[in-house]
């Protein structure tokens, strides 16, 4: 592949766009300039570090380092899911309830792709495993955090409706059913939209990157299709596992609604 190398002046010119946004925020007193600046700087630092880490990782091709990297990514995703919740589960489940299903689904889908489609040699070659985990985890994370946030806020809001059904002797899964279905739909809509819009309205980031880097468009498309299938499968799997676990946790074996297992006060979403 023969990607046109970028130098730092190119990046500096692109950064002007961010500065423009900051000026606009000032002009209309939106108060967003601080957040904008922090997230831009954070992005630059994070990506630069990741570039260095990946370079070292790719040079080493060690199964241990690859696994470690994947675990760190999954831990960060679990933390991120928890920080996006208005009302999270108490204790370690604030992280575990999202991280468990995410790690499970991501690992399963990544291994499937490595074993059947991409088949690098060795199979744990970080050049393939780490980017795959990254893209799958990102999508799975957004599904899981949308589901959890939607579900826990709906259940706390509609406590009276759920308890009315439980009081009449309805079982917990039936009583939670409408809320589970609604939150599931909301969590999966982004991946459905992503598939529906791909190519027609948007050119997916990965495909664009490959084309810009010089890959044949038809080859880039094939990769993109594969990736979207992996994303849809992984997201669905993780969200359904989260759905089941969170329904079990927010109720108990005596079919009681246990809102005491959520944080006392709704936190302001970051």
């Amino acid at each position, binding site marked *: 592949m023969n990607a046109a190398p970028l130098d730092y002046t190119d990046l500096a010119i692109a950064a002007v766009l961010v500065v423009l946004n900051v000026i606009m925020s000032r002009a209309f007193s939106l108060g967003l300039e601080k957040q904008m600046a922090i997230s831009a700087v954070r992005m630059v630092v994070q990506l630069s570090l990741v570039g260095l880490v990946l370079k070292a990782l790719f040079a080493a091709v060690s199964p241990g380092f690859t696994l470690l990297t994947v675990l760190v990514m999954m831990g960060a995703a679990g933390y991120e899911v928890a920080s996006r919740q208005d009302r999270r589960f108490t204790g370690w489940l604030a992280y575990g309830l999202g991280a468990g299903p995410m790690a499970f689904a991501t690992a399963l889908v990544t291994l499937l792709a490595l074993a059947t489609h991409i088949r690098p040699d060795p199979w744990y070659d970080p050049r393939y495993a780490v980017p795959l985990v990254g893209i799958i985890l990102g999508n799975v994370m957004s599904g899981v955090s949308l589901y959890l946030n939607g579900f826990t806020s709906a259940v706390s809001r509609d406590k*009276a409706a759920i308890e009315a*059904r439980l*009081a009449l002797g309805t079982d917990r899964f039936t009583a939670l059913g409408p809320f589970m279905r609604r939150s599931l739909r909301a969590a999966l809509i982004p991946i459905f939209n992503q598939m529906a819009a791909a190519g027609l309205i948007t050119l997916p980031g990965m495909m664009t990157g490959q084309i810009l880097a010089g890959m044949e468009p038809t080859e880039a498309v094939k990769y993109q299709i594969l990736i979207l299938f992996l994303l849809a499968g992984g997201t669905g799997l993780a969200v359904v596992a989260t759905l089941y676990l969170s329904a079990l946790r927010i109720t108990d074996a005596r079919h009681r609604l246990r809102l005491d297992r959520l944080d006392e006060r709704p936190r302001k979403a970051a």
Partner: protein
Amino acid sequence: MAACDRAMAACDIVMAACDIVMAACDRAMAACDTAMATLQLKIDNLRRPGFGPFNLTLSPGDCCVVSGPSGAGKTVFLRMIADLDPNEGRVSLGHHRREDMPATAWRQLVTYVAAESGWWADAVGEHFSATDGLDASRTALKLPAEIMEWPVARLSTGERQRLALLRAIVQKPRVLLLDEPTSALDPDTTCRVEQLLKRLQDDGVILLIVSHQPEQADRMATRRLEVAGGRGAVPAV
């Protein structure tokens, strides 16, 4: 001939055995009847942190009016009986012990109706599982037949309160735990609700009613419980 005699004798033995079984059956049926008639609600050492212990025994047809200041634990008491809040202690209805049955089955026998009604579907009718005896009770509560077709959003507070009671009654529970069942009703409608509740009492239903109206307690109560600071006491007469 000897073979025939032996066969006859065997027959006699079988017949005698049959009689014994029949008699046992009769006794079992009789026991069953008494059990139904004496479905006592027994609450023994019912508690959770900050509330209880509560002890109370009610017989079929009893109406226990629970009173006390706001925040005293009246609602928690009723919710614990229905097993809607985590709690310790024993509750039984006749020979049904709460811990021996699934919570769903227990709540169909012992049904809690909250002060603030909850609605999970758009139309009123979707909230009703049973239709047996629905019309009679609906009329008794002064609710029109068309109300089943209405969207929940159209209901007044008083209509919601009566419909929440109605959907519990049609499931034919043996114990009704009513949290301020008439708080949003005018005197006339309150009277209709009380008449319906009295009819249930005559059928052996046990009522526990949280009420802030002393006159209601005078009209309804066969038993009273005063709750203060999370504990229950039978008030001195």
